[in-house]
C-alpha cells in the first residue's frame, strides 16, 4: 500500500473540494440557525455576530424563544401534516403516472412521440402567476377541496418533470436488455416493471425527491387555494403567515426557526432513505 506523492496530493485536493462544497452549501443554513437563536434586538445589532451575543455585554446568549413560538403555532404543525400529505401524494402520482409515460416515450416506438414530449413539456412553461386564475376557476367549478386541488395542480409542474427525466433515463438503458427479456418471453410491460424500473430505481428515487421538494415548497397556489380553508394550509403558507405582535412587524427570528424545523426532519428522512434504499439498490442494479 505505497502511495505516490501525486496520489497524496490528489487525496488532499479531493478532501479540500469536499470541505469547500460543504461550507458553501451549509454556511447560509448556519446563518439561518444563528438568526433563529437571536432575539429581535440581537438581529438588529450592528455589527451582526456569528453566534448570538447579548447586545450589552457581548456574551454568547442564544435564545430558544423563536422555537417556542413556532411549536406553539397550531397552524404550523397542521401545516407540516398537510405538506406531507400533499407532497407525498403529488410525488407518488407523478412518479407512477410519469413512469408509464416515460416508458412509452423512452423505449416504445409509436407515432407522435416528439409532439407528445413537447406537449407535456409545454404544459409547464407558463409562470405560475399566469395559470393561477384559470386553475382556481377549474377547481371551483369542480368544487374540489383544498388538499386534493393542491395535489392536482402541483402535477402541472411535477408530472412533466418526472416524465421527462425518466424518459431520458430509460432511453439511456441499452436496448439489449429489452431484447433479452423478450427472448425469455416477457411482454413489453413485464420488461418495463421487471427490468427497466429496478435498474433505474436509484435515479427514480432522486427524481421523486426533487419533485417532492418542489411540491413541498410551493407557495403561490397553496396560498390561494387555502384562503378560505385555513386548516388545509401547507408549511410555506403557514410560515408566510407568521406575524409579529403588531401589524408590519416581521418576526424574522421565528421565520428562520420555522425554516430550520421544516428542513431538518426532511434531511433526516433523506439520510435514512438514501442509506437504506438507494445504497442497497444501486449495488443490486449495477450487478444485475
Amino acid at each position: 500500500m505505497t502511495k505516490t506523492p501525486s496520489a497524496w496530493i490528489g487525496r488532499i485536493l479531493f478532501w479540500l473540494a469536499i470541505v469547500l462544497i460543504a461550507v458553501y452549501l451549509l454556511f447560509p443554513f448556519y446563518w439561518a440557525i444563528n438568526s433563529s437563536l437571536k432575539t429581535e434586538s440581537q438581529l438588529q445589532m450592528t455589527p451582526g455576530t456569528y453566534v448570538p451575543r447579548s447586545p450589552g455585554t457581548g456574551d454568547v446568549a442564544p435564545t430558544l424563544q423563536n422555537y417556542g413560538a413556532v411549536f406553539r403555532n397550531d397552524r404550523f404543525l397542521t401545516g407540516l401534516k398537510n405538506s406531507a400529505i400533499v407532497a407525498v401524494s403529488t410525488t407518488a402520482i407523478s412518479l407512477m403516472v410519469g413512469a408509464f409515460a416515460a416508458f412509452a416515450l423512452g423505449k416504445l416506438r409509436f407515432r407522435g412521440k416528439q409532439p407528445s414530449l413537447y406537449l407535456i413539456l409545454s404544459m409547464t412553461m407558463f409562470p405560475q402567476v399566469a395559470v393561477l386564475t384559470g386553475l382556481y376557476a377549474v377547481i371551483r367549478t369542480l368544487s374540489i377541496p383544498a388538499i386534493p386541488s393542491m395535489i392536482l395542480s402541483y402535477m402541472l409542474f411535477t408530472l412533466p418533470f418526472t416524465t421527462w427525466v425518466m424518459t431520458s433515463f430509460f432511453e439511456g438503458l441499452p436496448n439489449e436488455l429489452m431484447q433479452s427479456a423478450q427472448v425469455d418471453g416477457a411482454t413489453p410491460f413485464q420488461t418495463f416493471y421487471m427490468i427497466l424500473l429496478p435498474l433505474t430505481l436509484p435515479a427514480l428515487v432522486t427524481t421523486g425527491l426533487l419533485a417532492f421538494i418542489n411540491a413541498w415548497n410551493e407557495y403561490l397556489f397553496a396560498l390561494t387555494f387555502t384562503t378560505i380553508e385555513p386548516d388545509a394550509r401547507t408549511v410555506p403558507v403557514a410560515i408566510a403567515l407568521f406575524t409579529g405582535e403588531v401589524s408590519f412587524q416581521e418576526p424574522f427570528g421565528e421565520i428562520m426557526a420555522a425554516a430550520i424545523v421544516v428542513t431538518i426532519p426532511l434531511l433526516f428522512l433523506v439520510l435514512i432513505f438514501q442509506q437504506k434504499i438507494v445504497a442497497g439498490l444501486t449495488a443490486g442494479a449495477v450487478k444485475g
Partner: protein
Amino acid sequence: MLNRKKLTLLGLLVILALLFAACGGDAEPTEAPVGEEPVDEEPVVEEEPTEEMMEEEEPPAEEEPAGEEEPAGEGEEITLRVLAGNVGQELALTQAAAERYMEANPNVTVEVVDTPDFVQDRLGVYLQLFEAQSPEGDVFQIDVIWPGDLAEHFVDLNEYGAAEVAGDHFDAIIENNTVDGALVGIPWFTDAGLLYYRTDLLEKYGFDAPPATWTELEEMAATIQEGEREEGNQDFWGFVWQGNAYEGLTCDALEWVSSNGGGTIVSPDGVITINNEAAIEIVDQAAGWVDTISPPGVTGYGEEDARAVWQAGNAAFMRNWPYAYSLGQAEDSAIVDMFDVSPLPAGEGGSPAATLGGWQLAVSRYSEHPEQAADLALFMASAEEQKIRAIEGSFNPTIESLYQDEEVLAAAPFFGSLFDVFTNAVARPSTVTAPQYNETSTLFFNAVHSVLIGDMDAEAAFAGLELDLEDLLGFETGAP
C-alpha cells in the same frame, strides 16, 4: 437476485399506493366541513336576495327596504366569514369581537380567516376570490386605498344602516370610502405617518424641540450623525424612512409634497397636479438625504428596515407608522424611554402632513347574507368595539369621540397629543383615480424612486410622470 429487486420495487410501489390511498382517505374529512358551510348546496340559504348578486347593478336593497328589520330570519343558521389581518394580537382581538357578536346572535357563526399581512399578497388573495365571484368571503378587511379600486365588489353600507353612524367617524376617511355616493367600507382603525425622534440625543446636542421643517430636520440629523460617528458609532444615521419602490414610498413622498404645498398628486376633483415647483423642490431635497443623513440603502427600505436601524439605536429620526412605538418600548429594545413621536416636519411655509393609512371593513357583493354581514361589519366597527381595540391593542379609533375617552387616553396617552395628526391626515388620491389607483401610485413611486437613486432629477421625473398620468387617467393637468 432479480427476485429480491422485484420484491423491493413492488413493496415500494405498494407503499406509495397506500400512502396515496391514505391521503385520499385523509382528504375526505377535510372536505366535510366545507360541505357543511352554507356555501354551495346547503338548503338553509333561503334569503330573498340570493339570485345572481353579481349581475345586479342595484344593491339588494331593492328587494328589502334598507336595514331596519332584524337582519336574519328566526333560527336560520348562518355562517359568516371575516377575512382579516393575521397579526397575533390583531387576530385575537378580531376573534374576541366575533365571539361577542355570536353571543348576541346565536344563529350566526362567525369564522375569522387570517390573510397575509403583506399587503400585496392579501390583495392578491382577495382579487382571486372576487374574480371567481366567490360567496365564500362575507366581510373583508380592506386597506384605505382599496375602496375605489374594489368598489364594484362591495355593497353600499349606507343601505344597511351605516348612514346613521357614518357621521361619528372622521370625515376624511368616510369621504375616502365613499365611491359614487356608496359607502364601500366602514372605517375600522386608522393610521398616520409620524416622526420618531431620540429625546436623549436631541438633548445631548442642544436641541429643545423636534424639527418643524424638513430643513431643520436635515440640519439636526447632520449634527447628531456627525457627533455620534465621532464618538465611534460608525453605523449611526440621522434619518431613516421608507424609500423602497413600493406603496410606502408613495406615503412618504406624499407627505413631503403635501407639506410643501405641492398638492396630492391628483387633486380630489380630478386634476393632475404633481408637476409643480413645490413638489419638484421637496423631492429633490429628499434625494439629497440619501447617503448623507440617510443610509445609501434607504432606497430599499420598508417599514421594518427603517425600524431595524432605529430600534438598534442607530438613527436620530425615523418616519414610520404608530406601530413602531410599542415595539420601541419593548423590553429588549435598545432605545426604551429614549424617544418620542411628533407630527412630521413641513416644507418652508407649508404645514405638516401625514399620510392617512388604516383599514376598513367591507361587505362582499357576492355574500349570500349581505344583510347579516353588514350588521356584523357595523358591529365590529362600532364605538364600543373600537374602544376595546384601542385599549387592548392601541389601534387608533376612527371615531372622533373616542379620542376624548378617558379610558382610551389612559391606555394610549399619545392618542391625545396626536389627535390633530389623525384628523388632518392626507388621503392618497385613491378614490378619484379609481379603479386605477394602484397604477397611479406605481407610476408615482417609480418616478420618485428614480429621483432618489439619482437616475434623473425631479423636474424630468415629474414631467414624465405627468404625461404617464394623462395617458392613464385622461385627466387635465393643473396647479395644486
